[in-house]
């Protein structure tokens, strides 16, 4: 696909490993007059686990939503595996890509939401096999077998025929994780997945995500307020403020020795009040 490939990324097969899983190029996102993201450039390498931190309204969630095509891009380009996602540069002009082309890329991306967003009119099993059967074209038997394995791995083997609203929040979120994994995504987006959960069940959900991080090579882009989780799972942390990347570092550096004063202030506010998770586990 020479016309649709990121011109900056792969020159040939030999360098394919260097193509980033996600690349933002001069991305701008406006809601009306409100500029949420401005001239944003960053890359996420394949297999990276990147956590986005920063105050509310700093545009972290918007980044995930742009990658999932839940929001439209105002300016710039997003490349997934070197391929333009929603817009491409063609003959010097920025043009939108077809829905069909977007869908092909979207299939490789999964997302887990803060509010779970399970389909309440379907059973747990139906939720999980819906997309594998109707999008990927798997047989029902094949998809069901995989769904049962996934339910087992998220600790809910007996809940296949339950309805989502009969489950606790933590259980619903575990089903949502299984549903996302059933599509075998290359990229998994986690949008404040524990924010709607009771504190005592946050751990079980994070434990499952930790396990996924350890046992797969899925690229993860994470927005979370759980700093301990960010530290455990991610290999890079990006601090956002006002729609820009203020600081970027490994978790060890970011949480112990942040350089930027905005990061220092933010981490102090989040962790310094005494109920922070860093060091308390």
């Amino acid at each position, binding site marked *: 696909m020479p016309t649709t490939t990121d011109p900056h990324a792969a020159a040939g097969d030999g360098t394919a490993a260097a193509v980033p899983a996600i690349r933002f190029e001069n991305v701008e996102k406006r809601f009306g007059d409100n500029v949420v993201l401005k001239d944003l450039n960053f890359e996420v390498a394949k297999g990276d686990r990147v956590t986005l931190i920063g105050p509310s309204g700093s545009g972290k969630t918007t980044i995930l939503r742009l990658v999932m095509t839940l929001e439209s891009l105002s300016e710039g380009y997003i490349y997934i595996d070197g391929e333009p996602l929603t817009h491409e540069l063609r003959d010097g002009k920025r043009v939108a890509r077809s829905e069909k082309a977007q869908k092909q890329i979207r299939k490789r991306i999964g997302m887990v939401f803060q509010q779970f967003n399970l389909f*309440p009119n379907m059973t747990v099993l139906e939720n999980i096999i819906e997309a594998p059967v109707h999008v990927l074209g798997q047989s029902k038997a094949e998809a069901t077998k995989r769904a049962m394995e996934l339910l087992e791995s998220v600790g809910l083997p007996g809940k296949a025929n339950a309805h989502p609203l009969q489950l606790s929040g933590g259980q619903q979120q575990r089903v949502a994780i299984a549903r996302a994994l059933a599509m075998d995504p290359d990229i998994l987006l986690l949008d404040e997945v524990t924010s709607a959960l009771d504190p005592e069940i946050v751990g079980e959900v994070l434990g499952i995500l930790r396990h996924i991080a350890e046992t797969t090579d899925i690229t993860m882009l994470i927005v979370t307020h759980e700093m301990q989780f960010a530290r455990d799972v991610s290999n890079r942390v990006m601090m956002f403020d006002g729609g820009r990347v203020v600081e970027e570092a490994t978790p060890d550096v970011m949480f112990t020795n942040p350089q930027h004063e905005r990061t220092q202030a933010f981490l102090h506010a989040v962790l310094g009040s005494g109920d922070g998770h860093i060091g308390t586990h």
Partner: protein
Amino acid sequence: MNGLWDWDAAWAVLPELLLAFVQVTLIVTVLSTAIAAVLGLFIAILRMSVPKPIAAVITFIGDFIRMTPIVVQLLFAYWTFLTIEPLTIGIVVFGIHYSTYMAEVYRAGIDSVPTGQWEATTALSMSKRRAWTAVIVPQALRATVPALGNYAISMFKDTPFLLTIGVVEMVRAGLTFGGNNFRYMEAITLAGVIFLLASYPTSLLISRLEKRLAYNY
């Protein structure tokens, strides 16, 4: 043959009323409800899927139909399509008229489905068609069943308007009997009782269905 109420006349008119009830009132109600339910859903989805100017035209047509009396529409269709059976005209006009109300109910039901549900269908790469049929419509219907049932009852009670285009529904059958025997009271009262006996249990059924749907998940 005098006095306010004559049981002989009542027994004599009852079979004629029941026949009209089965042959016209029930058939019109069932078929027109089916047309209205399907067409209404189609209109609601169409309006949300087409470009804004076209949606505005569909909305205007719907408003126009809802803002004019059904009797006027019946007579208009009757005098426009003289070769078509009045009963058929009645079924179609009732179906179209009520489809505009039902479209509004569906729209409210579709709006009541959280945006997170749409976002989940996108995150799972589901097709628009599959998103509508497997996720959005089933959830929207749950919220709309009671309102749709109430419109069906309302349509059922509107069927006497069919007498304006010469369809022999229950009231017309009663009036004919009254004209022939000079006994109107029994016929009209019994027609009212039959309406009540049919619509009251139906409304109870709808509220039971409403409760069941609410607790099902």
